[in-house]
């Protein structure tokens, strides 16, 4: 894996600068991360082989005070609108995972003209009483692992979870994840549903819904829930993958996304 360039993107007054990871050449693609925080990984490397990938940090993770100015989804939409403007991104392909998938879907519904193609990977944002979404926050580390992965012993997963030997680096990573959970929970605790279902009809982008068939946090029935509300959306279930298919089945997911965006 090759590291991406980390850019500090200034935002209109009141917000701390957004740390956006940038890499690759080609048409612009924005990737929105899940509840455990910003990262650069093999999946993004593959996307960056054909696209210029921008992976911003969710606001509030690094600077918790930002959350005082973000009172819900509407404020969050304006935050990203500002960020895209600052990055000079008129129209992008948007890929979102988990919480990032929820935000991506909201953006595609709020600003249909900004999104060319939309990829939702195990996205949060909808709710079914007969298949409740799990709780990744107030749960034991063991249960959390089971919610997130089909097979946590796979080397790819182990590598993602590994903590650095160096105590200072390790604490930094723990804080990074802790703060990401705090700042994403700000928009979805205790039930990750804020009315997205009624807004999805506005999505105009060509949409691909990718889901880990064994996702125990957001069961795969939600793939159909998204597809049913977005005109023309396609669903691709990924076998041998839980909530993070782009890590557990990186090749398959990368290929599917690149082909869809081509």
């Amino acid at each position, binding site marked *: 894996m090759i590291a991406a360039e980390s850019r500090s993107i200034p935002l209109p007054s009141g917000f701390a600068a957004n740390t956006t990871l940038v890499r690759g050449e080609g048409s612009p693609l924005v990737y929105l991360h899940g509840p455990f925080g910003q990262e650069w990984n093999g999946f993004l490397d593959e996307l960056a082989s054909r696209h210029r990938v921008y992976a911003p940090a969710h606001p509030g993770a690094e600077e918790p005070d930002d959350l005082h100015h973000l*009172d819900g989804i509407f404020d969050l939409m304006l935050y990203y609108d500002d960020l895209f403007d600052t990055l000079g991104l008129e129209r992008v392909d948007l890929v979102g995972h988990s919480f990032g998938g929820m935000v991506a879907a909201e953006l595609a519904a709020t600003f249909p003209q900004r999104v060319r193609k939309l990829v939702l990977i195990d996205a949060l944002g909808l709710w079914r009483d007969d298949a409740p979404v799990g709780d990744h926050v*107030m749960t*034991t580390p063991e249960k959390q692992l089971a919610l997130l992965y089909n097979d946590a012993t796979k080397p790819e997963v182990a590598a993602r979870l590994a903590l650095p030997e160096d105590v200072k680096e390790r604490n930094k990573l723990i804080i990074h994840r802790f703060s990401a959970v*705090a700042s994403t*929970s700000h928009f979805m605790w205790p039930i990750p549903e804020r009315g997205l279902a009624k807004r999805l009809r506005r999505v105009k982008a060509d949409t691909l819904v990718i889901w880990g068939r064994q996702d125990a946090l957001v069961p795969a029935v939600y793939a159909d829930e998204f597809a049913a509300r977005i005109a023309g959306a396609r669903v691709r279930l990924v076998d041998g993958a839980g909530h993070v298919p782009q890590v557990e089945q990186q090749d398959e997911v990368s290929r599917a996304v690149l082909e869809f965006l081509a």
Partner: protein
Amino acid sequence: MKTIWFHMQGYRDLPDDFRERHESIWITPPNDELCDSATVGKYLHWNLDELELADDLGFDGLGLNEHHQNGYGFPVSPNLIAATLARRKSDAAIVMLGNTLPLYNPPMRVAEEMALLDCLSGGRLVAGWPIGSAMDTTGCYGITPTEVRPRYYEAHDLIKAAWTRPGPFPFNGKFTKLRYVNPWPKPLQKPHPPIWCAGGGSVETWKFAAENDYTYSYLSFFGHKAAKKLIDGYWNEVAKAGRDENPYRAGFAQLVVVGETDAEAEREYLPHIKNFFDKSLYIPGHHAMVPGYMTKQSMEFLLGQSGSASPFATLGSNFSWKEHVENQGIVIGGSPATVADRLREAVKTLRVGHLMVVLQIQSMKPEQTAKNTRLFAEKVLPKIRDIWDDEGWVDHWWPSGATRHAPKSAPQGNGAARKRAVVRDAATLEVRS
């Protein structure tokens, strides 16, 4: 010093294999399996009997608090319990510690109910406003972790304004918007019942209490030795805010067991102490330290200090009597003489004017609780009542209608203190509005 008989109101008959079978005492212990309604009815009568006994035996105050969905203590809506106590003819304080402000929407409910209690009790109410544990706020009541404190501060401003400003007036908060704030009634105590803060040791709360000139009570069960560092942190904030060293600015909760002799105390109460720490304080890290409820700053501090283990989960269930009572000082127990000596030392060291004694420890039967309470009232209380008298401080945070053991020379209801409070409140309102 003021001594408050504090009732935690827990579930007294939890199974011995509780820890093996359940992840936590809070939020998720399954109600149908563990919480029998008829049994709870029995407990509630016992709880009230015990509180009424404490009232009859001369404690300065009766302490209640609010918690939800757990076996540690589930008073749920403590104002209901307080209402039955308020009906009794008594001169003891009703120390409501308290109503968890972020859980009320609109928080006018607290303004109204506490005012009602104050009127009903003849001005005996302490208005305690804790922020609430992560378990109660984010776990049981679904409050967004990052909103717990903002909601607390806003509710505080609203209730205080509702009690001190003439109604009706509009209140435009972020979480509560009201066109007409005009509670009927306002509290009997003027400008309002004494406000008490409480907590488990977060710096933000110390600052808030010190800056607003409220009293702060440290409520945890690690004992007086472990409390020293935390209470000192609070006193440090008090000094920084330019306040005096009045010991009534601080309170502290302590588990206490009294026997005729040290040996008897150990024999009778140790099983209940072990049971309490084994089950009631079985709170895992994923329930106590929720991201966002716990700030990034606090997490960095904690990681820098040690690891990320929950401070509660492993505490004390296997400790011996000696470990509890002497080495760790978690429990104060023994003969009346031993208990009085230890309490005096703890109170002096921590510099607390409000001592909350926990004499009903979860699995203790009513007879044992009564015995513990009687021994304490008859043989310990007289020996600790005079602590701080030599320094001559006035308790500005005691309800004016709670006149029990009031110094004969002092003006009725701390009139001087009240006058000061008016000035203080005017200044506070100005700053905050």
